[in-house]
């Protein structure tokens, strides 16, 4: 569970940094700034869901890997 928390914090941190970067890059263009911010948030959400579900799936696995013969 600790790793899940650390991972979430890393994801949140990366999101904040990207959000900030995008906002700075498009500081003179409000329309594209808003679009960029939306993209960063959406991408972060999608990728976080995928990573977190994959992590959770392996956290308390119901089956074990079986040696293939």
């Amino acid at each position, binding site marked *: 569970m600790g*790793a899940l928390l650390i*991972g979430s914090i890393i994801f949140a941190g990366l999101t904040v940094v990207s959000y900030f970067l995008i906002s700075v890059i498009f500081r003179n263009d*409000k*329309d*594209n*700034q*808003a*679009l960029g911010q*939306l*993209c960063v948030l*959406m*991408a972060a*959400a*999608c*990728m976080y*869901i*995928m*990573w977190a*579900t*994959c*992590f*959770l*799936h*392996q*956290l*308390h*696995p*119901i*089956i*074990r*890997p*079986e*040696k*293939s*013969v």
Partner: protein
Amino acid sequence: MDGDMMPAPKKSNWGNLFRSEDMVLIGLYFDRAAAEQTVHELGRIGLVELIDLNPHYSPFQRTFAADVKRCEEMQRRLRFLYQQVEGLDGVFIPDGEEYSRETLQAVRLDDLDSHLGQLETNLNQMNVQEEALHLQMNERIEHKYVLEICATFFSDVPRSGGTFDLRESRTMLNFITGVVQREKLPVFERLLFRATKGNCHLKFNDLPKPVIDPHTAESMNKAVFVVFFSGETVRTKVTKICNAFGANLYPFPFSHNSQMTMYNECRARLNDLENVTITTRRQKVETLSEIAAKLPLWSEKVFCEKAVYHTLNLLNFDTSQKLFVGEGWCPKNRVDDVRLALDRAVRRANAQVPSMLEERKPSSRETPPTYYRINKFTEIFQTIVESYGVAQYHEVNPAPFLITSFPFLFGVMFGDVGHGIIMAAFAFLMILFEKRLQYSKNEMVQNLYKGRYIIFLMGLFSIFTGFIYNEFFAIPLDIFGSRWKYTSESSMACGIDNCDVPSEVLPPLHPYPLGFDPVWKGSQNSLLFFNSYKMKFSIVIGVSQMVLGICLSYANAKFFREPIDVWYVFVPQMIFMNSIFGYLVFLILFKWLKNWNSEACMSDPTCEPPDLKAILIGMFMSPGNVPPKLKLYDGQAFVQVILLLAALVAIPWMLLPKPFLLKARFERTKYQIVKNNSDLETPASDADSHHHGPFNFGDTMVNQMIHTIEFVLGAVSNTASYLRLWALSLAHAELSDVFLEKLLYTSIESGSPVGILIGFSMWLCATIGVLMLMESLSAFLHALRLHWVEFQNKFYNLHGTGRKFAPFDFAELRQLEAES
């Protein structure tokens, strides 16, 4: 009520792509003298969509019908000239460029018209002449061959005094000479034989090289023939057959002397003809090369003029005041640009009367067109959305959400680091060389070029999902070190940090941090593990996207100030969706978070992971009763009953109140109209923007019923539809696995370098051809469907589609013409 007929709510601060631009209806007034210039300027800036003010007139009844027709005639002539020039070698037409206003101005349409007319007549004359010359020349050539070859036929005939003396024979023997196509010769011979009952003799010889037939102007292999026969009746028969076979007959005199004279005449004539042809040809080339350089300019001029006249036909012309009146839509923040354009036109035309622009209040029946300011990056996403349907004016646009969700869902189905890198690199190259690819004529290249940014993002997300699935060309990447190890005690692996008793096969305390542990790829039960994850993930991401879609319908309702849509559509929809499928997501998360390997659970026989599908089915089939096998947490039965009730209540809540409330509102408005009937303008309630015309309760009810049924059934089928994410990613993983195992690994096992080379190239072809091209196309199409249907049907185009802004724009028209 009367004040805010057009709702002008504040636009969100989510950028220009989130909702379409504010549009205004503008009225234009300009002098006849400035008309052409004004319309020309409007075409250049491309910001105004002019409304047809004479919809009841046919194209022929309009003011400038004759001018449009004249321009069309000129375009036809120009096309003719283009054809003529393209038919010549060595004369090139320069590519069309951006011509300045002055250059175009310098060309006068009347002069050009007469000039083009003259050119056409001249060229037609030249062509007729040239054709006649060619016909004569080809005839002479054939005749020359006849004279040459027939002489050999007759060389073995007994001669007397230099002449063939056929008359000496007992019967009068006649003959006909000519040329016929080589392929027809056998049939020709047989027919002649039958028609004359065998009383004829055919001699023939092939021409040494193909000649051009004078009449059909086609190059063909031919043969010279002589038919000998007797009697005049036979002659007519033979001549008829010759004509039927397209044989050209040429005279061949008896005497050797006349043969020689004829031959010499023929050669001299041929020589003359050749000279004349060369001169004519030179004249034609000169004429055409003179105009070739000007053709693009002329086409551009005529094209612009035609567009201008066509547009002028849309306007009202006040004959008494010599004034044009136009009406059109224009983006609100560009009105000043239009104003400046009008002023420029007046100055250029030296018109006495200044032009006028006024902003008008549109009546409620005229919905403004939908217009987004897109750039080269957002263009493709907008195109994808609009292939499904154009947003209504100010409706929420799904395109900004597609920018990430589309490539992401694609990546879920196409997850492989290697494949993702290839795709992203390919798209990156296209972006790098986009200037060079822009004008490519190849349709395939054009399509890829248009999609370069979305392909790039698709590649990037595939790399990410590839890391999650842990696949690099189907090989697992062991970046962080596997957390499982196999021991000799058991066929199953145990966690490296939790393997004190290997036979207990306990999982690792700290799972693999990013994506799937590489141990799974080679394990026997990997599919079981991956499928379980992919199915659950599909449901989680699908429900999230659909809930986002429902939330966007809330954004629409809020924006259009439709409280009915908030309380009687959005709220029950949210309740229904979340009490069933939100609960499913909750169950998935709960099952993941519960430690099935804890000592307490291991020692408790009832602690067994339940089947989530069975829980969901049981929730409907036997409410209030949870068998121990399906128990996940305490109080589960109660929660499920409450959720089921909520979902059931939500259905009539969606269905019934809205039509009744709309009816009540309509009656209220009607009453108000009667009350202030001094106001003759068509009243429209601010919120009633998409229910025009008289209110029909039956229709509204049926409509609402369809929407409700669609949503309720759709909630189930759409969630199931997201399972395609699992299916496609499974197919992708299996295919790339098979290619790797069967092609690459098998060949490497063979050990021979040639075998490895063949195996590798086959694997490469399969990867590129099957996975990168076909598989990616199918993943693209499935992502498209998920967005068009599952995502957009929650909020988009619910009240019909909108109309796309189509401004009068030269650049746009030019592109259309180039494509046709």
